[in-house]
């Protein structure tokens, strides 16, 4: 049974982001630039419009973003 907060999560997954978004291929093309801007504390969302919305709508791209972010952050501290 899907209830309460899980219900909202399920509806969010069904409806996806409200904002315009890029597709998976454009996300992959821009991911390295986006992550470096994030790690530099710059406005990555302004520099790459539509990528944040895509990450909200695509779990696979979100996982790859989170991995690259974590790996590059760790690499910078080595």
């Amino acid at each position, binding site marked *: 049974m899907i209830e309460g907060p899980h219900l909202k999560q399920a509806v969010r997954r069904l409806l996806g982001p409200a904002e315009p978004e890029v597709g998976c291929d454009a996300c992959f093309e*821009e991911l390295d630039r986006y992550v470096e801007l994030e790690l530099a504390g710059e406005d990555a969302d302004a520099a790459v419009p539509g990528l944040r919305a895509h990450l909200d709508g695509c779990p696979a791209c979100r996982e790859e973003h989170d991995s690259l972010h974590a790996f590059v952050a760790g690499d910078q501290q080595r």
Partner: protein
Amino acid sequence: MSALDTATVGIVEPVVPLIAPTKPQRSALDAESQEWLRSLRLEDTREEAIARLHALLLRAARFEVARRRPALPHLRGNDLDDIATEAADDALMSVLRRLDDFRGASRFTTWVYKFALLEASSKLRKRAWQGREVPLEPEGWGTFSSTSLEPDAELEQSELLITLQNAIAEVLTPHQRSVLVALALNGVPIDVLAERLNTNRGALYKTLHDARRKLRKHLDERGLALDNWLEER
């Protein structure tokens, strides 16, 4: 062919961008990135540079495997290391094939890492679903419930859920419905579904996006604005 295509199997549909991506100016390359490109292109240094590149890619692939290991208890250490090595090998091929595409929008190492992480995560998602049936039909349509809500909200949201379920059944094409249900309701990873349907990730996401737009339009036309409700945690 994009790296996303090579991480799936076959390409049968065109990939249409949802909105046009921005194209940054070509950046001046940092010294380390220049050195990587130079040594990968010069015959005298190429072999040694490829070996160094493979080591970098393998480190990134192993990082991804280690991150996901808790979710893959049935895989043994040897299996996981094989997956990391395969991911690094495939990423190396993609990077060498696409070397001229590197625009210097990031450091060269960040650019190559994303190929290794994509290959590793895609292989791990596929391995996790190996031998499992991919459900394309709703696994529990009647399972949406608003019983934990306040009475007024419950009535409003019951209407919303009925409208949403009807829209999925009536407004979408059969292909859009299958893709939406598999990806958004049943939690099938997009690259797993792409492999089973012999298509690619970009084309599937376009189908998902179109289905979502249709559902939103249908709800909007019936005065069911959802975004405020969805933003409340």
